């Protein structure tokens, strides 16, 4: 693959990654205020950042219950996101969606399914409608490796290829390889092999490298925009250990940007954290640590202010539960 140089600009990938990271860290730090379940995207920010850079007006995005990074990176209002997770009455969803169904139509996230594989076929319909209305637009379709256990993914890969739909399939794959198998639950050698069996060309990438993810996703997205049909990205990102419990827990501490100058030890931040990996790329590209710290301070302040704004919103009223069941009662 041709390596073109991504410029050493913190605004490109680091800033959207930090929006996602600081959002999730704040949620975990304030977990006592959350009544229901929630999932965080820590360790999966590479694809979200690439999405933020590649997304154009008219594109749509389907995501999963692990949706925070996608929305945060796309620039969705963090206060509305916090409020929805906390059951506050700030955004249109008014506590009826919760963490698992976060949306923001202004950035192309029209609906979020919490069923494993649930949003995958939606991307096909959105790609069909979107590309006819606005040629060159695409649907970004995110799902986890577990979704390959569901028939909908296989049916959708086949149908997208059959109808040459402009879908960028992105599997955020935190499953471990299992001998000769893609993972413990797939007998195929790789997820790319499964996609290619359905005539969807694909590539695997190391999710710990945001620049590599961006380059791969940029190439695939360009092919899809050029009417080549759907493409598949296997984003191989090791599972963050804070996600190994039913509820996320603070397994690795608040991310410290200055730790990017260290790669010693065997910590997650030293080897697997995509946020610090991007910091290291920027440092080696000549961006001073001070500038990275300033970017982080600005993003962290935005996240802190958003949480305060969400907390200041009233609790969603009981009558909100009864509204909007259908559009035409």
């Amino acid at each position, binding site marked *: 693959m041709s390596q073109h140089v991504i410029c050493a600009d913190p605004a490109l990938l680091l800033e959207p990654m930090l929006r996602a990271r600081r959002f999730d860290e704040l949620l975990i730090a304030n977990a006592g205020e959350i009544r229901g379940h929630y999932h965080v995207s820590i360790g999966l920010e590479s694809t979200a950042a690439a999405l933020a850079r590649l997304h154009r007006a008219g594109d749509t995005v389907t995501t999963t219950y692990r949706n925070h990074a996608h929305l945060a990176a796309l620039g969705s209002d963090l206060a509305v996101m916090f409020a929805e997770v906390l059951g506050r009455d700030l955004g249109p969803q*008014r506590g009826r969606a919760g963490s698992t169904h976060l949306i923001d139509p202004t950035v192309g996230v*029209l609906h979020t399914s919490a069923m494993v594989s649930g949003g995958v076929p939606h991307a096909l319909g*959105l790609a069909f409608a979107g590309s006819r*209305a606005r040629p060159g637009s695409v649907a970004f379709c995110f799902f986890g490796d577990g979704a390959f256990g569901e028939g*909908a993914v296989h049916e959708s890969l086949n149908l997208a290829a059959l109808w040459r739909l402009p879908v960028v399939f992105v599997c955020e794959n935190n499953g471990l390889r299992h001998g000769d198998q893609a993972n413990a639950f797939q007998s195929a050698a790789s997820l790319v092999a499964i996609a290619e069996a359905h005539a969807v060309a694909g590539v695997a990438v190391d999710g710990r490298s945001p620049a590599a993810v961006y380059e791969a996703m940029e190439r695939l997205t360009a092919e899809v925009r050029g009417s080549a049909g759907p493409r598949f990205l296997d984003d191989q990102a090791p599972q963050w250990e804070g996600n190994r419990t039913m509820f996320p827990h603070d397994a690795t501490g608040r991310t410290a940007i200055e730790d990017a100058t260290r790669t010693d030890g065997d910590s997650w931040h030293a080897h697997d954290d995509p946020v610090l990996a991007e910091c290291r790329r920027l440092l080696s590209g000549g961006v001073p640590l001070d500038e990275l710290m300033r970017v982080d301070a600005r993003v962290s302040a935005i996240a802190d202010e958003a949480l305060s704004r969400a907390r200041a919103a009233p609790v969603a009223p009981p009558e909100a539960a009864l509204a909007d069941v259908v559009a035409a009662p």
Partner: protein
Amino acid sequence: MTAPTFVEAARDALEHHLAIDDRVMVLGEDVATGGPFGLTKGLSQRFGTERIRNTPISEGAVMGVAVGLALGGRRPFVDLMFNDFVTLASDQLFNHAAKLHYTSGGRRPVPLTVWTIGGAGTRWGAQHSQRLDGWLTQVPGLKVLAPSSPVAAAGAVRVALDDPDPVVVLADRTLLYSRSCLPRDGASPWRSRIVQAGTDLTLAASGRLVHLALDAAATTGASVEIIDVQRLAPLDCDLVVESVSRTGRLLVLHDEAWCGATAATLVAAVSERAFWALDAPPRRLTSPATPIPAAAVLEDAYMVGGDAILAAINEMVNG
């Protein structure tokens, strides 16, 4: 000119909408070649296979694609063929189509029409004869219509394609090629309608059973008020309750097992809202709680039939 059959009338309504609204698309197995029961006959020739799209036998993904199309501004019409196939599309229908408007905070309607045929009577056996009304009507967010005549079928297709919400049109298998009209056929497909006024007993039914009820009532001396319950979800109970408050008796017919939802909910609504007007216990005639048998004699025994309806009317009015 010969009156259209149920399927022809529905097809004509679909064709009309395809002509006036270019957002309307048809998805399903064999729809581009006319559909297994003729519902889409000639449509791909007129509107092209871009809009009349054959799909693989992937009901789950196809229903999901339709949800995505609806989100993207189209008005998909899915021919789900047999009602039994709701099982294969159920995640997309129940967990997605029915809930998106709510979880999106009212920002994303899902204008989706699902056409599906159900019911016993043509000896197709246990997996191609069910009516899963009970399932479809248990999920808030879905609207379910059960048309009973060609005019009603056309009306159901028309209002479903005009509606911003997901609507399932549940067509009765044995009515597909029927040309039989009903009194007050022009009434709104959304509302229960009185197809025959009466004073002794209220008989609530839908689909094919409305016709059987009319035939049975014609052979009894009783004055039977027959109500066609066209909207199964949200179940339109008001007219039935009002009628029973006048007649004092309720008989409900429904092509589901006795534990299915529709007949039981009608009886519950009357018990709650017109209890003191009752002169007799409400009664249901439904299918037994068994899979649907294939052999003609067995299937006939399974189905609610005219003799049973007549006997029930006479027992309730004279007993």
